[in-house]
């Protein structure tokens, strides 16, 4: 029986140390070990994107990574993007433009969208649809997700210009 190993992750700026088997999937580490339940499990087969987190600056699916691979990594989940008292512009936009219905896909959507807007600050509809292609939504039909991301992009660009 393989022994548990000692791992360190920095999740949303907080260092977490724990013992786990290397085969533990990162999504379970986050949800069940660290109680960070924003990232969801939709398919568990790398298709739906509900488990999307940012790992060392890249969007990844946490259901398709062993915790051992992530040892030493910096991870951002939806909890690190904004909370009820300090919503991220994407969260505000999803709320205002009905970018969600049941909300199951939303943490993954917004976590992926934060990276997309870093990669392309003012994306076209086509760039949004292509850049969000790893995230599936069963409710909205995507139209309002696209609108929400466009609205947030406009808001963030305006804020950036105002700051300059």
């Amino acid at each position: 029986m393989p022994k548990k190993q000692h791992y360190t992750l920095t999740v949303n700026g907080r260092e977490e140390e724990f013992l786990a088997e290397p085969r533990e999937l990162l999504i379970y580490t986050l949800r069940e070990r660290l109680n960070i339940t924003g990232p969801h499990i939709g398919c568990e087969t790398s298709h739906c994107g509900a488990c999307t987190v940012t790992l060392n600056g890249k969007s990844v699916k946490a259901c398709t990574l062993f915790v051992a691979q992530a040892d030493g990594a910096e991870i951002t989940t939806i909890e690190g993007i904004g909370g009820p008292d300090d919503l991220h512009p994407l969260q505000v936009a999803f709320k205002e433009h009905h970018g969600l219905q049941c909300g199951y896909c939303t943490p993954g959507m917004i976590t992926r969208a934060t990276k997309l807007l870093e990669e392309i600050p003012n994306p076209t509809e086509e760039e949004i649809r292509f850049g969000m292609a790893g995230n599936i939504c069963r409710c909205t039909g995507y139209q309002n997700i696209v609108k929400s991301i466009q609205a947030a992009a406009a808001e963030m660009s305006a804020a950036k210009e105002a700051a300059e």
Partner: protein
Amino acid sequence: MIPAAFDYYRPKDMAGVLALLDTHGDDARVIAGGHSLIPMMKLRMADVQHLIDLQDVGGLSDIEIGAESVRLGALVTQADIIDHTGLATAAPILREAALQIADPQVRSMGTVGGNVANGDPGNDMPGLMQCLDATFSLVGPEGSRDVPARAFYEAAYMTARADDEVLTAVSIPRPTGGFAYEKQKRKIGDYATAAAAVQMVRAGETCASAAIAMTNLSDTPVFSAAAGAALEGTRVDDAAIKTAVAAMLADIDPTEDNRGPVAFKKHVAGVILSRAIARAWSRA
């Protein structure tokens, strides 16, 4: 979906990787991005007792663009290929193909080395690399050797790489002329129903040379020398494209699966190759 337990190692250099492969033999596997291997381990279709992570081995993530060739380290990801400005001019077909693989999250993990070493007929890069006449560099207990992509694939998941060898890099002679990577898939993120990689050189009004490889239409990628030859010396008119498609169809051997029956796959292969040739020629 919990995979079976394994021991995990993250050696700092290739000597460490090779030593572990030597000690554990068949029970050990290397992992790069894990986006082919982890799904197989979750399904318990891959039995891995010792997992050797390549991520800390230095020197495997470089992209080198030389005067004559392009060299991609095994750990270069699909996202790295897409983002690299030099590659977009030196070998634009790589970017065009990488954009048609999976989705953004998968592309930030999936590596070139894993894609070509995996041996899954569904992977897009083996056919691409055959079209480009790439060479795979392997290192093992006996030292290093190079194997041409066109001689690497033996059957599904069977390649010229021995179990105790690691693929370190893919080298590509700098492609010239027009190019196209054309892929038919059921949805974004799906493996190909049929895909074609085409690279063509023009001399005046006629085609001087053409390289054609097909994906997911046999248990290995198919480099169709006959299809390329059918275009050479022609003006790449409809008749020439038809002859090339017929030559390609004689070289593939698709099987029926959830992407469709054999006749459908052959039909799609023909459509995809015709489109790829037309697009490559328009860029030549």
